[in-house]
């Protein structure tokens, strides 16, 4: 029973990892671009949720949507003003630009919101369900299921719609896509918007049960890298599986070996995976 409880907790957290990592994998796979500021997008999503709750009220649906919209706009702006100009430069310029961006976003939040830890006021999602003896907090259940649904939706959008296939076409071969009349710039801007929006919603969902401060992005950013590499660059289903698996591994190793070993186990497996299957679980070689 205890084991089942641990597993449920791990999967619910893993679903959220999957959601914010799916955004990172999208731009990584599509543009071969490392974004060091992805964790900061998650952090900003959390603050958008807080502002909406404090100023306008409303439940998770309201602030989740608001976080998605706000971060989508930010993602497009970041692409248009910065990323577009460095994307075809040397890889070092990419690292430089997004690392600088991460500092800029983190400390702008710091300036505005101060360093104090904040948490969302108690929402309607307070209680705990008892499903056959397994305790499942409603907030985490809703967050986990929403995250899983959205990640699947992202995958369906990419594979099942015209815009989605245009996006993937740009990822596959930029020049060929241009010849087909697709404007890669627009598609890439869209990808950045989607990536940031998914991070934003994930942040808003995390905010329901997790207290935070502006420096929280660092933790999420590193976790997203691991999930994306684990799943294979550019693969949304890969990020989905990897997110769930890593959530599960963390929960199980925290329970059996102790919490300080949970990340050691994750990184250890990760290094082993890179050794044996460097393209990730579902990545193309």
């Amino acid at each position, binding site marked *: 029973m205890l084991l089942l409880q641990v597993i449920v*907790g791990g999967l619910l957290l893993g679903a959220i990892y999957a959601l914010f990592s799916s955004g990172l994998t999208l731009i990584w796979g599509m543009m071969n671009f490392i974004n060091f500021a992805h964790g900061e997008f998650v952090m900003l999503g959390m603050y958008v949720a807080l502002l909406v709750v404090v100023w306008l009220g409303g439940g998770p649906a309201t602030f989740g949507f608001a976080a998605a919209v706000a971060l989508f706009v930010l993602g497009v702006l970041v692409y248009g003003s910065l990323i577009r100009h460095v994307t075809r430069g040397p890889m070092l310029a990419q690292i430089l630009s997004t690392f600088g961006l991460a500092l800029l976003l983190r400390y702008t939040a710091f300036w505005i919101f*101060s360093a104090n830890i904040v948490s969302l006021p*108690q929402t309607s999602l307070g209680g705990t369900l008892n499903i056959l003896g397994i*305790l499942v907090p409603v907030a985490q259940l809703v967050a986990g299921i929403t995250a899983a649904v959205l990640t699947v939706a992202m995958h369906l959008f990419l594979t099942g719609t015209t815009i989605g296939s245009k996006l993937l076409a740009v990822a596959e071969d930029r020049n060929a896509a241009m010849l087909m009349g697709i404007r890669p710039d627009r598609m890439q801007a869209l990808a950045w918007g989607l990536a940031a929006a998914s991070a934003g919603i994930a942040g808003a969902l995390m905010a329901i049960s997790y*207290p935070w401060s502006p420096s929280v992005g660092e933790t999420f950013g590193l976790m997203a890298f691991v999930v994306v590499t684990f799943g294979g660059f550019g693969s949304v289903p890969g990020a989905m599986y990897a997110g769930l698996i890593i959530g599960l591994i963390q929960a199980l190793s925290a329970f059996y070996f102790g919490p300080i070993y949970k*990340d050691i186990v994750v990184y250890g497996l990760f290094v082993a995976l890179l050794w044996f299957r460097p393209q990730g679980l579902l990545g193309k070689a």
Partner: protein
Amino acid sequence: MVKQVNRRTVLAGAGAAATSLATGASSVRAADPVKVGVLFPLTGNAAAAGQASKAAVEIAAEIVNDAHPELVGIPLAKDAGIPGLGGAKLELVFIDHQGNPSVAQQQALRLINQDKVNVLLGAYQSSCTLTATPVAERNGIPFVVGDSAAGNITQRGFKWLFRVTPIASDFAAAYMTFFADMNKAGHKVASVAVVNENTDYGTSVGDAVEAAAKKAGLTVSNRIPYSASTTDVSAQVLQLKDKNPDVVIFISYTADAILYMKTMKNLDYMPAMVLGDDSGFSDPSFIPAIQDIAQGVMNRSAWDIGKPGSTTSKINDMYKGKTGRDLDDTSGRNMQAMLTLADALNRAGSVDPAKIQAALIATDLKPEQLMMGYRGVKFDETGQNILASTYLIQLKGKDYKVVWPDANATEKLVWPMKGWKA
């Protein structure tokens, strides 16, 4: 400038006892301010604590610099400035060491060589205190440590280092005395769990508590070190639930402390008592986040706001006016360090480092002269305050109340805690 000082001194003198006339006369000449270099982490992971401590130290300087006769007992509050230095004021130079030990070292150099400070105070994280204090030692500048808890800070034979705060072994001893009292009172405490964040603070306090508990014959059912940046603690809560100790001691920072309380509620786990070790449990963000689900949680603190109208309550009002929040224990310990320093400066009668050092060594403050609940301030040869002690407080409604030791208790202890069933 000179005029202003005069008028303030005269006003203070008129309002207060005749003794101040003498000091008033000597402070007609405006003395040079005493420069105090203050090192805190104002950015980075510990920024919240650093910023709160900065505000507290600023209030301490205000208490010394302006006339505050209403703060009964606090040395130097009554008159403006430091009488022993001809009414000189404290001038604070703040630096941000970012929680980075090498930046702390570099900025300590800057404060001494560039800003020519007379004395240093800091530096929150033990790692930064460990690297900044040797700079002061080599340059012969007194360094007052407000709240870094690592034991080895005072074990290096330094002559210019003075630590006002109690340290890990003191906390551990206090907890064991408390548990013994509980057992006498019929509240069973046979097994405890120690849950600590795994940086220098959590590890050193956790080790001390575990060792003391074993020595006191208690069973340590779980020892759980964890990383404070963790996003999920359900596995640990399940481990605790599995072993079901009588008391769980948390040595945690803020976000993780809140997360533990929320997760315990979600997983329906409540021990007879949760005892927080200051830090996260004292952060003003903690109470509003958990007051509905963790009623009766206990915490270590040497700070008590006290009854309205008391000196501590007035100090809290000053702090609240500046920051909008109640003073917390961590910031309070830094404030006490600054006030201790001011008292020594007054007795030194000079800004000569050796004189300040001698005055610090001779420090002997009584409990009624302190804003914190120490038994006094008196340094041993290592520079450690041997009269530092602590209260235990309990969350009742929206505030912590002192419940232990009995001599200082303002309310009765509630055992077991009520949690969300209040």
